[in-house]
């Protein structure tokens, strides 16, 4: 059974954390089509979290066509219509990133510096896309 976790210091709203965890798990294959997500009540009692938060996350996942809720049965992961990326693209991106990370560490950056650099470049790329 899929298990959610919450990071209360990330600044990311809890419902969005749940959404992102399912998205990632689907992308990485930890969640497969037909898998059942935990019931809202199960997530609530596990994390001591507001049920509306879980319901909101599940609604958003349904809107994104990642999952389907079946009344009385639960929420199930859908067959993905168009995979976000092919396995080979995923592998190649991952290798490229690993190479880059090794270079960054070799150049003396630590994890925090890497995170800051990634955030800064991401920000720049985003503003270039908008412009």
């Amino acid at each position, binding site marked *: 059974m899929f298990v959610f976790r*919450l990071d*209360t*210091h*990330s*600044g*990311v*709203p*809890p*419902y969005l954390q749940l959404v992102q965890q399912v998205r990632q798990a689907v992308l990485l294959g930890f969640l497969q089509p037909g898998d059942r997500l935990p019931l*809202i*009540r199960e997530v*609530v*009692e*596990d*994390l*001591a*979290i*507001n*049920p*509306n*938060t879980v319901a*909101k996350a599940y609604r958003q996942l349904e809107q994104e066509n990642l999952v389907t809720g079946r009344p009385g049965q639960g929420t199930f992961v859908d067959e993905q219509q168009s995979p976000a990326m092919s396995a080979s693209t995923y592998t190649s991106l991952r290798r490229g990133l690993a190479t880059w990370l090794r270079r960054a560490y070799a150049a003396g950056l630590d994890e925090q510096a890497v995170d800051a650099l990634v*955030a*800064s470049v991401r*920000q720049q790329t985003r503003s270039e896309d908008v412009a």
Partner: protein
Amino acid sequence: MTATGFALRTDGVGKRYRKGWALRDCTLDLPAGGVIALVGPNGAGKTTLLRLVVGLLAPSTGTVEVLGHDVADSTPQTLSRVGFLAQDHPLYRRFTVAEMLRFGRSCNLRFDQELAERRLAKRGIPLDRRAGTLSGGQQAQVALALALAKRPDLLVLDEPVASLDPLARHEFMQVLMGAVAEDGVTVLFSSHVVHELERVCDHLVVLDQGRVTLTGDIDTLLAEHRLLVGPRTTHDLDRSAAVVEAVHSDRHTTLLVRDGGLPAAPGWQARPVALEDLVLAYLRRSSEPSATVPSGVAA
């Protein structure tokens, strides 16, 4: 769900004790069907507001409407829809848990004893123990089970987890959130701890020195606010109404802004703000001596 869709509406509510105003100009519209946190430092007026809501106090000014009914015109029927758990979960120490349940059943129009027994059994709390011999966490569980056995539409809790250790706190919230999921009860609770609020509530009311300084749906509040970090600015940013707080270091300025605020200038980074930081910024702001110029903290 009530006819109005509001669990609680207050209009211009104030409460004056002999030593002065504990609460002033309190106007709130809080929706039913969610979890509402009332946050503020000790002495902010939280307990006063909660006691006004459940009818244990009468307001000096304004009106309090709970589940669509003016609290001033409460009847046993309207009161039976509201549960109240006072600070420190008071129980009769020499009563056994079973006696507490019998007492609860005889004092309430509606009381689901079976539900309470099931909840307590799930937590392994024996019915034949005297309340005074239970641990703090278990006493809190008994008090919560009693309050929920009323099957209230609105449950009001005054600092329910303040006296509990982290594990007991988590267990208490598990049961409380479970009740929201299963029974659809609307929860209004006060807390002077802002940590971990985000995971349990939908709606927030920040109270300081007897006044409401921030209220709203939490996702909306978080979406409306952001932190802007950039080069130190001598600009008159602080005076802009959109700036909640400005903190300056030698080279950087960090601004907490509310939407409609400043356009992102080059060199500035926008970041989401965590709920805890948002609440603290508003509390710091309202504790500043002059409310006319919401200027920042110069470092």
